[in-house]
């Protein structure tokens, strides 16, 4: 039932609104609204019950194991939420003077410093509001750098074909053309193709490392030399930063600019699709172009650096200070981890992934890159199963929902047929991983014994498989009252 179907004319949550309608007779009728907007008319309890029930129709980290590759669905500590929502933080207006926000600004400054250390970059701006915006800021800085040197011929961004879709989409938004290069059999960047692709037209290379294929680019030092020798810059897509957090710094690999997804690596909530935060880190040569605002410490006081302070800045990503509340959550998480805890993140994420890989391999699953060490994630390919039974990776993923597990990432990366990209994260216990392996084995047996049953999954969710074609062809995006 929709909230609108709970609605009755003249019912209202009286305690939640001003007691009276104030006089607005100074406003001319020509500017006023004549119709009533379609908002629910419901009691407080109607609303609370409706949305509580809706919440119960979701899978979430708090209720289920979520081995969603490339998304780093680690536990979101509760203190990060409650402390970021202290009244002093929530009440402060973004335009309030810096003097009234020293507690918040100190936290942001310290977060910048910690992120600089852990990534090995010279500067960090917290401004971008999501990974894709961080990418945009990063590529815009690459462009600003070349433009400032009068190097206008550099108009091409190189992207491995295994990259996230945001990489090519971002390059285009920055006015670049995109050249995709292939991946070799071991899941690594094809070095010959890279060598052939670079030249005086190369603005930069966007790379995820470990790659989206779940393996580390062993040739990273050579890759960075090829790109830098050609005059291009190196962009690090931080989607998989959890795989190296505390272990390897992107700055040490030679990257000039990176974005981080704090909603992955720093455990801020995914919130059913955001808000995230996508800070950018830069090498010294890109410091003049950082997006504003950046927090500075001067004579013991904190303030925001804006356009006048960083005159060559690529500009503003948001009207205010990015997703400030998300940044606060990441700060609190980082302080609870501490240096020692941060060193351990990649280690235990990698331990969990390699253990799960080993157990699934023993259970008869095909691994996409069996000769490679898994990073914090790895790929199972169900091509053989599909050929033999008709059960696809999608069917398999849907059946996992029946066993109480969120599906791994399916059909990404597109290079591997019938793939499941599995990322357990460091916060899951051995028992959880073992139980997941049992469910995977059970479904594998089901796929051979009763393939049609698996193809019809899920059976235990609020709905069965949905008609996506109908959804796209007969667009129904807003509810219309019956009369």
């Amino acid at each position, binding site marked *: 039932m929709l909230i609108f179907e709970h609605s009755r004319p003249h019912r209202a*949550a009286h305690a939640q609104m001003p007691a009276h309608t104030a006089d607005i007779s100074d406003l001319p009728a020509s500017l*006023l609204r004549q*119709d009533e907007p379609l*908002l629910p008319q*419901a009691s407080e309890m109607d609303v609370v019950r409706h*949305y509580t029930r809706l919440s*119960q*129709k979701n899978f979430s980290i708090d209720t289920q194991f979520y081995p*969603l590759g490339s998304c780093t669905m680690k536990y979101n500590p509760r203190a990060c939420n409650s*402390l970021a*929502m*202290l009244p002093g*933080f929530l009440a402060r207006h*973004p*335009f309030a*003077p810096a003097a009234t926000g020293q*507690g918040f600004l*100190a936290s942001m400054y310290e977060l910048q*410093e910690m992120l600089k*250390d852990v990534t090995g970059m010279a500067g960090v701006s917290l401004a971008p509001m999501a990974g894709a915006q961080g990418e945009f800021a990063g590529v*815009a800085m690459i462009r600003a750098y070349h433009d400032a040197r009068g190097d206008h011929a550099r108009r091409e961004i190189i992207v491995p074909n295994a990259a996230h*879709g*945001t990489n090519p989409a971002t390059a*285009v*938004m920055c*006015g670049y053309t995109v050249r995709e290069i292939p991946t070799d059999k071991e899941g690594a960047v094809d070095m010959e193709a890279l060598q052939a692709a670079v030249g005086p037209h190369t603005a930069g290379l966007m790379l995820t490392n470990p790659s989206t294929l779940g393996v580390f680019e062993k040739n*990273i030092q050579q890759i960075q030399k090829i790109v830098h020798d050609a005059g291009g810059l190196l962009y690090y897509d931080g989607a998989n930063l959890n795989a190296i957090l*505390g*272990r390897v710094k992107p700055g040490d690999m030679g990257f000039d600019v990176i974005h981080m997804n704090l909603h992955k690596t720093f455990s801020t909530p995914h*919130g*059913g*699709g955001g*808000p*995230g935060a996508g800070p950018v880190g830069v090498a010294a040569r890109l410091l003049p172009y950082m997006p504003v605002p950046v927090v500075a410490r001067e004579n013991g006081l904190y303030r925001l650096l804006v356009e006048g302070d960083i005159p060559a800045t690529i*500009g503003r990503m948001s009207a*205010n*200070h990015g*997703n400030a509340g998300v940044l606060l959550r990441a700060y*609190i998480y980082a302080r*609870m981890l501490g*240096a*020692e805890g941060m060193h351990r993140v990649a*280690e*235990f994420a990698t*331990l969990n992934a390699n*253990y799960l*890989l080993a157990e699934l391999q023993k259970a008869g699953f095909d691994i996409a890159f069996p000769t490679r060490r898994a990073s914090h994630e790895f790929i199972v390919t169900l091509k053989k199963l599909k050929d033999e039974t008709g059960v696809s990776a999608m069917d398999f993923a849907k059946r996992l929902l029946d066993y109480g597990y*969120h599906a791994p990432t399916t059909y990404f990366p597109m290079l591997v047929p019938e793939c499941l990209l599995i990322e357990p994260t460091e*916060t*899951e216990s*051995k028992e959880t991983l073992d139980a997941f392996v049992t469910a995977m084995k059970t479904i594998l047996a089901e796929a051979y014994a009763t393939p049609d049953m698996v193809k*019809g999954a*899920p059976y235990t*969710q609020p709905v*069965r498989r949905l*008609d996506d074609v109908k959804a*796209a062809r007969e*667009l129904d*995006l*807003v509810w219309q009252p019956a009369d």
Partner: protein
Amino acid sequence: MPFIPHTDADVTQMLAAIGAPSIDALFDEIPAALRSGKLTQVPEAMTEMEIDRLMQERAELDGRQLNFIGAGAYEHHIPAAVWQITTRGEFYSAYTPYQAEASQGTLQLIYEYQTMMASLTGMDVSNASLYDGGSALAEAVLMAVRAHKGAMRVLMPKTVSPLYRAVVRSMVKNQHIELVELDYDRVSGTTPVPTADMGDFAALVIPQPNFFGALEDVDALTDWAHAHGGRVIALTNPTSLALLKAPGQWGAQGADIVVGDGQPLGAPLANGGPYYGFMTCKQALVRQMPGRIVGRTVDLDGKQGFTLTLQAREQHIRRSKATSNICTNQGLVVTASTIYMSLLGPQGLKRVAAASHANTRSLLAQLCAIPGVKQAFSGHCFHEAVLQLDRPVAPVLAALQAQGILGGHDLGADYPELGNALLICATETKTAADLQRYAQQLSLALNNK
């Protein structure tokens, strides 16, 4: 280790299963030279009790001031139920609803949100949200240019928030799009209908209320833009739409795209975020819209269900040909907003808007009675207005701040032509005593100089 559940026995068993001698061995494919040294800028771990103490102290430091700043972020009462339900783990810690069967809660909520926003703005369809008002305006500019397939110019009044204009500039500057600034009338603080030939343009942006709180002649501006072959991008404050004419009803044909910041609908001020950007549009433009969209459909048994749709527009499918690179949006804040709108309903939202407007008007009357203070513009305003002082604004604001009052937003840096101009706002959260206190303190601040 914090948030890592492994016992030593677990680690031993897991390494044995892998066939690796140590955790270090799992990193044997990474060149040894790349191993990082000890982190020096990350302090030692704090327990929850210790970080609790630190953050309490910092939040206390930021304290509570009596706030009269608006300028794009508004302090409204947020019912207790809004964030209590929003931060339930099932909403808070869920992923983007790609697995529709396991995400019906989030998906249905977004469908309800889309319905509310489309109705509030008088448009046919809505997306699931963008990052904030500024980036939503930038996406609307890109969308209008895509849809026009010719003109690369967009008319941007100076009465649009200077920060929004800055965001738009940084997001479109590499795509050969020209932003043509339209000046405002110094008497009314609104944008005159252009009389000169403006050439080809993809869209005209119309802010309502505008950054000064002034009400633009939206009907005339909309009709003018359409008559000259451009589309209309409405930039609105969603609270105002409970009272003001919906953009879908502007002029003869209505606006084409509506954007704004959803913050006033249930998001706290919170140092500037997270907020969210909303975007609604006419049906004809739906395939040009950026961001996620939820549709209602049926499952294998014919039962109603909800799913992400029109994904062929998006980066994970279209890659370099996508309508935008946006991926993550502001889902959790949209969750709060949907609950907020459901609790307030049409009547409640109207009362919030009316009370905010009436409070601002009352504050204006009291402040303008003080010698040396006058209203900058002559026309109608909505829940925000510009004052002109007889002396520089900064020291006056500092004197007010010393009394625990944030007196408004100084317009000097962005609008030097307005002289000593101060943008003020009083929402429904301010009592008569609050307004009086501001007036008394301003009077004192001006007399002491």
